[in-house]
């Protein structure tokens, strides 16, 4: 069997007394788009920083391309590209210079660096901004440039910490499309995101983390079908509705003034709700990853 891109066993990260990553095990295969999902403070960034060899692990085993992160950080870093959660482009330099200056750190010679920079500028639709200092770029352009910069060494593995956060829908879909193209060329893509709907569409496999632990790992459709009935009926939490559900022993989840009932056949329930309770709001939809996410991590604010 091929060596996995990333293999973690009982991975731990502590900051003093705080356990940010608490015994995580997972495998990322080469050539897949792999997502890290989880509420704020779940430990996504901490995990990704250990994989990128910029933060020492506190325990467990972690291998990237079969290499131990503690022993071969240089070899690993040469083969990966990193987009961190915070922008760290060089504000004094232009788009083009940001790329070529960064290339030098990978021992890429000047002509080759310039060639790759031009290529990446086209790939990320930054052509007309080529010579613009980056302080004049929009948030979406900066993000694209950061991703372009992470690709300058033609990495086998790209690690992106919330690559689409704060961007408009067009900018987000452009980034997703480029990441897919990257995967189709054989790179492995590891990313974290808070956009569950996008994760469901674009990730081949993913994990949901909370409080440092991995709650589920798998393909998005399998995760949803294994844990949820097919449909979610969403309705107003009136006393009549609650009474009906309690009386019939139908399981439900309450979110503020709404209730969610997951069922495999929606029609009978909907008919009874309409005829017996006439709720102000009634909505039937397919169960999504977001439903699994909320069920697993709870709806309370995390941090």
């Amino acid at each position, binding site marked *: 069997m091929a060596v996995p891109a990333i293999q973690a066993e009982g991975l731990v990260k502590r*900051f003093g007394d705080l356990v940010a990553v608490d015994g995580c095990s997972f495998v990322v295969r080469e050539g897949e788009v792999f997502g890290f999902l989880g509420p704020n403070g779940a430990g996504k960034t901490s995990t990704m920083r250990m994989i*990128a*060899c*910029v*933060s*020492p692990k506190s325990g467990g085993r972690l291998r990237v391309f079969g290499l131990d*992160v*503690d022993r071969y*950080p*240089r070899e690993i*870093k*040469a083969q*990966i590209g*990193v987009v*961190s959660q*915070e*922008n*760290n*482009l*060089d*504000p*004094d*330099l232009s788009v083009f*210079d940001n790329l070529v*200056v*960064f290339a*030098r*750190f*990978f*021992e890429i010679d000047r002509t080759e660096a310039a060639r790759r920079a031009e290529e990446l500028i086209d790939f990320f639709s930054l052509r007309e901004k080529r010579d613009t200092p980056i302080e004049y770029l929009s948030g979406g352009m900066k993000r694209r440039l950061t991703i372009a910069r992470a690709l300058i*060494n033609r990495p086998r593995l790209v690690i992106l910490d919330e690559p689409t956060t704060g961007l408009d829908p067009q900018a987000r879909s452009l980034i997703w499309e480029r990441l897919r193209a990257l995967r189709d060329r054989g790179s492995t893509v590891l990313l974290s995101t808070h956009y569950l709907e996008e994760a469901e569409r674009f990730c081949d496999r993913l994990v949901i983390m909370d409080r440092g632990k991995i709650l589920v790992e798998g393909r998005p459709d399998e995760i949803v079908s294994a844990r949820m009935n097919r449909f979610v009926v969403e309705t107003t939490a009136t006393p009549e509705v609650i009474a009906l559900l309690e009386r019939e022993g139908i399981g439900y989840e309450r979110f503020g003034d709404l209730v969610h009932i997951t069922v495999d056949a929606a029609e009978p329930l909907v008919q009874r709700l309409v005829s017996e309770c006439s709720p102000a709001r009634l909505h039937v939809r397919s169960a999504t990853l977001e439903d699994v996410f909320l069920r697993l991590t709870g709806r309370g604010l995390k941090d």
Partner: protein
Amino acid sequence: MTDGWVSWRVRHVWERNFHVFVRTWKVSFLPPLFDSLFFLVALGYGLGQFVPAIDGVEYARFVAPAVVAIGIMNASYYETTYGSFVRMYYQKTFDALIATPVTIEEVIVGEILWGATKSVIYTALILPLLAVLGVISLPGSLLLLVLALPGGLLFGGIGLCFTARTPSIDTLSYPQFLFITPMMVISGTFFPIESLPVQIQWVAFALMPLAHLVSLSRALTLAVPAPMGLVNLLWLTVVTAGVMVVAVRQMRRRLVV
């Protein structure tokens, strides 16, 4: 996590700073030059009219080497305090660099080397001006270009030690008025160190890098033998090595989490 040794890759860190410098050198280099010239004119020619020759040396020629030494200090010290702090804290440049095959040690050493380079560039620019003013003797003063390197490494390392510990950019002013400013006064800069009480002279030579730098610098610009030249050089070498080790350790503690 990092290999703990420093390879030739430090040159990329240096190059990155150089690249930015080339884009912005006019803003970053004219002020220190003017600074030095103002000092020299105000002290050397202004105050100098009221000061008798010191050991037969007219006052402008006495202060000139101190002005250069202070310039060497400032060039690297400010680069690795305010400059490095901005790169580390606001621009997150170091975070971006350690995600490449470069180690944190190489980033730190690269920063110090760059600070020292700024000291050398400063010296190369100020020397012709001082030569035109006739306050330094040639060709001996050209050796200041060589002296600027250890001087720059030392103050660059000292600057990074403070950068590693400072909670914010504002608190960087503490080492400045607790250390740099007193040192500028008692290091034999504006008056002979021998005119200080002997205990303070000892303190100066034991703890003040600038005292050693001024002493060597003055010997070069006046073309006279340095009374303690070897001691000065040895002190600078040993302390520079020590400071660089401390700087790397402190920065590791701050950045590797």
